[in-house]
């Protein structure tokens, strides 16, 4: 598969505080990738860089062979074509839900891309149905529960049917049933041409949502590999603050073991 995103020594900082420190990676078209890392490791910043909301202050970021720069995004034709292909679901749904009703929210993207009215109506209905939010159609997003907000945020992006989906903690704040719904959705895209890049620190879903994992640590790639290689690497995960020692007692015996929350088991 051709390389879709290519980052070379990409750096980015917020008001002098470095968020990415020379990050390099390649992601191919159709890949399902998980970005693992503790809070502050640069996952969200990386997603914003990939979505061309921020631009690298040093190094380079390319999409489909084209280097992403602020100047390029001054051009309406390129910007709209890019937005049509790449979509980001933000970690905080309140940021993403700025329209007065759920319907308006889901229709926002297609309207900006100036789709025909009939297409907008049918695609919005499909996306709301897919995420189970049709009954919330006329409700204002600020009156929804956390899980409902997240599902509306997902619907508002899925309606665009983008080639690349950037998901920032998509299962955070969701109840277990909605979590598994999102995981199922990502699993369905396996083998399709859709590229799915998910930032998470929930190790238990990684095997289901990703074919390849990047572990981020202080704005750099600390390791990369397939989930069966990365997830059992306790030293790596401990260093990246993704696991901790779990202490508990069995009768009078107190002991500790790695706390992974994954499909792996431990022996007593």
């Amino acid at each position: 598969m051709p390389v879709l995103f290519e980052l070379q020594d990409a750096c980015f900082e917020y008001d002098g505080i470095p968020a990415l420190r020379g990050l390099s990676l390649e992601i191919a078209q159709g890949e399902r990738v998980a970005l693992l890392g503790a809070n502050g490791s640069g996952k969200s910043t990386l997603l914003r860089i990939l979505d061309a909301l921020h631009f690298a202050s040093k190094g380079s970021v390319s999409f489909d062979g084209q280097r992403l720069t602020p100047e390029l995004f001054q051009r309406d034709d390129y910007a709209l074509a890019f937005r049509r292909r790449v979509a980001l679901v933000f970690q905080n749904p309140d940021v993403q839900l700025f329209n007065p009703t759920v319907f308006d929210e889901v229709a926002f993207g297609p309207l900006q891309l100036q789709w025909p009215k009939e297409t907008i109506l049918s695609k919005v209905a499909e996306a709301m149905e897919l995420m189970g939010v049709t009954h919330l159609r006329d409700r204002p997003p600020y009156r929804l529960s956390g899980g409902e907000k997240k599902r509306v945020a997902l619907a508002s992006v899925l309606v665009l049917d983008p080639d690349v989906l950037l998901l920032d903690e998509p299962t955070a704040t969701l109840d277990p049933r909605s979590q598994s719904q999102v995981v199922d959705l990502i699993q369905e895209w396996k083998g399709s041409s859709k590229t799915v890049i998910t930032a998470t620190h929930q190790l238990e879903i990684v095997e289901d949502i990703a074919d390849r994992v990047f572990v981020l640590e202080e704005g750099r790639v600390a390791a990369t590999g397939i989930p069966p290689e990365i997830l059992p690497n306790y030293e790596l995960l401990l260093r990246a603050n993704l696991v901790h020692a779990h202490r508990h007692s069995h009768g009078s015996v107190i002991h500790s073991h790695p706390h992974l929350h994954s499909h792996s088991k431990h022996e007593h």
Partner: protein
Amino acid sequence: MKRGFLESTFVGFARVVTRAMISEETARRRGLLQALDPRVRVVGLFSLVLAVTLSRKISVVVALLTVAVAIAILSRVSLFVLVKRVWLVVLGFTAVIAVPAIFVTPGDPVATFGFLTITEQGLRTAAMLILRVETAVTFTTLLILCTPWTHVLKALRAFRLPKEAIAMLAMTHRYVFLLVETASQMLESRRSRTVGILKPAAQRRMAARTAGVLLSKSIELSNEVYLAMQSRGFRGDIQILSDFRLDAWDYLGLTAFLLAGGLAVWMGR
């Protein structure tokens, strides 16, 4: 722990804002205004507000107030809500301006209290002012209560109001709740960590800090929201889906509103 003056004021403000802006419940009822196209509601009710401001006769303004009450009843708006949330509040504010007019307007004396004289013209001026404001605010409140905010915005858009102004109104409406909620949580969190009663000076300092943090948060939030809008293709030009359609009932309603407004202006000249 007892709430301080500033906190009580904020909690009251939050309640009023939330109540004033959430009108979906009334808007969902089946009634006269709810059955009309939002654009007809906007034009019709604003034409009546215009008639109120142009009328010079008390009898005509009273007639328009009666029309407002009739519309409220037919639109299934609670009169209790109107009295409590509109009439009494407006009376309180307007009286501050109207009461001095009773004494300072020159004219025929009606009664004298020491050096203060109430004149007939003063009473008329005060009554006219209060009635005008009450009636105009009642019509505006009916529009807000019977129309979801989104429809008001779309209707305004249909009248070629600048897209930027509409977008600002929509965003303000959306994020005022989020900021009110954030501020409430900040105050609750502070209360949970405060032991004893703070001195007024300490309370003021705390309130100033809270306001500062809230301002920073709102700036951060607006930046994030802008990024989220950009991410979905926003290029500075808001696109709105308008699916309003006028039917015979809407044309009838619009004619009735315009006739009533025109008649009121003619009779009240």
